[in-house]
């Protein structure tokens, strides 16, 4: 547990989940506080499944999820979102037939703060998007699309943001920018982040804690600074 007051924001115990009866995650324990928590692992390790399960988009086979002490294990996705868990999927993170502005509006349908204030804040964070407001999200480039998806999730005023490989397939310029923004979102907005990533080097630069997933099991959970290359290689089964 790493939250300053000693109790974790998100507590996960014995999490098992998968698709169509096939178990992908085989008993994950996780405590996330006010921090950037990186989830690393090779393809098929279960990173996406873990985040989608935490977002309550995949049903659990076993285990519990507590958010701020409340048991959210059986809550539907829209209710966990309303409690402050934002989710940015790896793919299809925007509604292609809606404009950038409409995508953001949809994200801002929950929460009490003025939608205009929230839109102004996300444009401050990603200034390039302001010029694309009227453009259909389906016509954006990969990097722009990821920015919109991230802003859409931020429009929910989340306390915990689940980012699923936000830089996968992006150019190095976008990758650097995204990791800077992840730090900025955490530090200036106080949003905790669980970041699933393939790019271990970059992820470890911004993360406080790290979990290495290997074939659906937590191979290592520790301070990001303490993870050695050998441990990482072993976790990636290289």
């Amino acid at each position, binding site marked *: 547990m790493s939250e300053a007051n000693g109790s974790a924001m998100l507590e996960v115990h014995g999490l098992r989940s998968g698709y169509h009866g096939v178990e992908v995650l085989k008993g994950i324990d996780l405590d996330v506080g006010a921090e950037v928590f990186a989830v690393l692992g090779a393809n098929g390790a279960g990173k996406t499944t873990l985040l989608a399960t935490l*977002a309550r*988009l995949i049903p659990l086979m076993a285990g519990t999820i507590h958010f701020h002490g409340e048991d959210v294990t059986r809550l*539907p*996705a*829209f*209710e966990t*979102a*309303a409690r402050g868990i934002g*989710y940015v*999927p790896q793919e*299809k*993170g925007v*509604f*292609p*037939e*809606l404009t950038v502005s*409409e995508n953001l*509006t*949809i*994200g801002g*349908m*929950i929460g009490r703060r003025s939608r205009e204030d929230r839109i102004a804040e996300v444009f401050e964070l990603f200034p390039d998007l302001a010029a694309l407001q009227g453009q*259909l999200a*389906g*016509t954006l480039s990969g990097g722009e699309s990821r920015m919109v998806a991230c802003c*859409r*999730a931020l429009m*929910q005023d989340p306390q915990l943001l689940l980012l699923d490989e936000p830089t996968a397939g992006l150019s190095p310029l976008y990758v650097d920018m995204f990791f800077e923004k992840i730090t900025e979102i955490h530090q200036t907005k106080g949003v905790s982040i669980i970041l699933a990533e393939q790019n271990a080097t970059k992820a470890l630069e911004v993360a406080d804690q790290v979990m290495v997933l290997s074939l659906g099991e937590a191979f290592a959970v520790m301070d990001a600074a303490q993870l050695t290359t050998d441990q990482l290689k072993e976790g990636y089964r290289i």
Partner: protein
Amino acid sequence: MNLDWLDAFLISGLFSVVIIIGLGLLLHLQLGLARIANFGVVGFFGIGMYAFGVMFVKVDWPFSEVWAFFISLAFGTLVAGLSGLLVGWLIADLDEDGVLVGTLGFATAVLILATTEQDLTGGALGLGGLKFPYDIGSVKANEFLWLIIVTTVVALILLYVGRVHRSPYGRLLIAVGANEPLARSLGKPAFRTKLWLFAVGSAGMGLLGALFGVMVRFLDISNLGIDVTLAAMVALVLGGTARVWGAVIGGFLTIGLFEIVVQSYIPFPQGWYGQAIPVVRQMVFGATLIVVLLFRPLGILGDMRRDKLMRSMHGG
């Protein structure tokens, strides 16, 4: 009122066009925005029509006929809405095939019920005794006034649909239709949204069914055939599934063409109208559906959003 200038076939034809436009508009919210392919339109239309008819004709009301009429109308609308709620609850989480089978199955169940529950519905013999809630003289005058009233109701549906299109709720329907898991992860109850949409749409279809029943004044199971669903679907697809005016344009070009132009203005031999033309109509509607889906899937009016997306993806 002197209505000699007005042809009775024209009133009947226009009435059919207006009803199909109304059904097409409601279908547009389900299919055009939320991508729910409701093939059971006639089921909700029919259940509203029969619930209204049975209530109005079979119940011995202790108050005036006008009150009985409006209570029965509300009852028909409510029963259709509740049916929509039930069917929506059953199909909301199903894939496209499941929705198709579920809604078609519901329409078939309504037809079977109307046929077999003879004590209530009159079965294959039909149910008479329906009447307008007013009498302003001739049958033609009463029908003409009813056409105006129903046109007003459909115009209100058009206004409602236009309003939904411009509202955040409309964007939400597009979002739920495009990517339901993503919409759920944004804090929106997609299941409840679809359920509410289905219930409201079905209630509207039921209301139109009841209004149709008043015009024909005799409920007959031949009004519960798949051709009603097909007509609304073809009108919407031809005009433009994703556009508010799609069903209006499509309604005039399909039902309008057959019910007004062919019936009133083309001098076919008299015998053709009873047998040949309805069959030809079905064939033309089916062929139209195929041709439009092949060559202009977004309909005559297209869809600004999807057109723009297509251009962006394929160039040009």
